[in-house]
């Protein structure tokens, strides 16, 4: 059974159809990219997968739970337990250090563990920056803290929204290395991006246009072939 199974979902805001009859399955351990131009429905899709929004129609099954039918309170709990979110703007809490920002995720999930949080920082190469505030970190470093925070509770699904959108080439490379490592360790990763190079790193790229899946591309390394 797929970790994430999207069955005919639509999302309608008034007269705007943000998503129309989307079917998509993501297997455990898969790395999937979602691409598309502005207004194609990428963000709506990410919000629905990330349990921050509900579809107007259709079902979204995550780890066997129909998250399209759950209450807001249950969605919060599912998000906390099963999903790791990575944001384009990093969204670190300005008055907490890098270490504390990671421990916040532990705090809401179960129990803060400083040792484990330090290991997570070490994993993204920022151990020596643990006591720094976000304002004392570069954009790339902030994104790495954001990734460490997303991974600290061992989520089933890592959901990244334009993770390299605000980074320079060097930091983009560092972040993509982390994603590659994550994937090699068996994590399921869904990346929403407009950058074809980032998208090609995934095993599969879903291209959205006008709220519909226009095509799905299967990538083999840098080689790609079109399917379906």
């Amino acid at each position: 059974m797929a970790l994430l199974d999207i069955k005919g979902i639509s999302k309608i805001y008034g007269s705007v159809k943000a998503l129309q009859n989307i079917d998509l399955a993501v297997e455990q351990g898969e790395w999937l990219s979602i691409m598309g131009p502005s207004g194609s429905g990428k963000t709506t899709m990410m919000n629905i997968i990330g349990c921050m929004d509900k579809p107007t129609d259709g079902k979204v099954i995550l780890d066997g739970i129909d998250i399209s039918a759950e209450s807001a309170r249950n969605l919060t709990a599912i998000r906390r337990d099963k999903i790791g979110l990575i944001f384009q703007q990093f969204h670190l809490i300005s008055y907490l250090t890098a270490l504390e920002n990671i421990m916040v995720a532990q705090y809401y999930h179960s129990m803060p563990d400083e040792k484990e949080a330090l290991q997570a920082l070490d994993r993204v190469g920022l151990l020596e920056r643990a006591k720094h505030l976000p304002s004392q970190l570069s954009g790339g470093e902030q994104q790495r803290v954001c990734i460490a925070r997303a991974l600290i509770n061992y989520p089933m699904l890592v959901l990244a929204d334009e993770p390299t959108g605000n980074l320079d080439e060097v930091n983009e490379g560092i972040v993509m290395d982390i994603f590659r490592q994550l994937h090699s360790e068996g994590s399921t990763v869904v990346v929403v991006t407009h950058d074809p190079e980032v998208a090609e790193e995934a095993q599969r790229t879903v291209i959205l246009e006008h709220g519909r899946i226009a095509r799905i591309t299967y990538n083999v390394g840098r080689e790609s072939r079109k399917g379906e």
Partner: protein
Amino acid sequence: MTKRSMYIKMITSSLIRRRSRMFVALLAVAVGATILSGLVTVYYDIPRQMRQEFRSYGANFILVSASGETISEESAAAALGCIPEDKVVGTAPYRYETVKINEQPFMAAGTELSEARKASPYWFVSGEWPERDGSVLIGQEVADVIKLLPGNSFTMTGTDLAGESFSRDFRVSGIVQTGGTEEAFIFMSLADFASVIGENGAFDVVECSISASQAELETIAARVTEIAEDVAPRLVTRVTRSEGAVLTKLQALVFLVTAVVLLLTMICVATTMMAVVAERRKEIGLKKALGAPDKSIITEFLGEGLLLGCLGGALGSALGFGFAQIIGVNVFSRAVQFPAALAPATLIASVLITGLACLIPVRSATYVDPAIVLRGE
């Protein structure tokens, strides 16, 4: 690190590292607590302060004879023993007798002049208070009739208790102006009075100035009636009633001002917290995205608010005492007493008011939709 220590870390970091933002809220709470603490101190100290002020208006408690005759010295002493020493401002026993100066009749009053001075501090004396035998104070009316000035001498004549005529020279030490009946009297020491009129071991009246509320005076009066049956205690109602009325009005005013200040503090804190919640919508959205339930969001913001209330309350308690002292020194010209229980009471009141003020802003924090506030640009 436990969940509790992480919680404390989060709320203290928010206050310490975002101090410029939270300073406004802290200032609002501290100012409110200062005024609360200061005014409550004044509220409770007003009766004490005002009673001291009212003692400037003369006697508020008078002992007369129950039979309409005189009060014996023993009865007067027994009655005065009923007044707590720490509340006595002055007790002046008086003897009265008609005397003549230049064949014109005047009323002579023998008293303990030092006590009369304490009991009637409103008397305006031109010249000096008598300090030697043979020196007297004369009222302004007397001085006008017989054309006397301080330093002048005059001869007093009359009939003593034994029916014998007397004649003695006295020196005018000072002239009394009160705007009242005192201006028609000649005041002298009890010894001088006895030297011309004679000794009878009794007083006509004892005027007392007591620093006490009307209720306390009534209690003293009841005790005097019990102990000295031949003494009739009387409250000078024009003093005690006006004292009570002024105190009630002053306390009501302070109470009203305190209530208004508390309301304004609450509005100020609520407005500041509203602004804080509005500017931290992304942070709230992020916490929700990380899985924070509404309860956590509420407890974190409420925790910040209550910590602010605590800090502001502590600061306000200390500053409030200073504020009350300034009021005491500038308005009443004497220091106020700080009720010990007021410090914790101010702290608790500040925490409660801040908590109450935070309820609406904190509630609004739970309405933040993470999908909207975290949307990519």
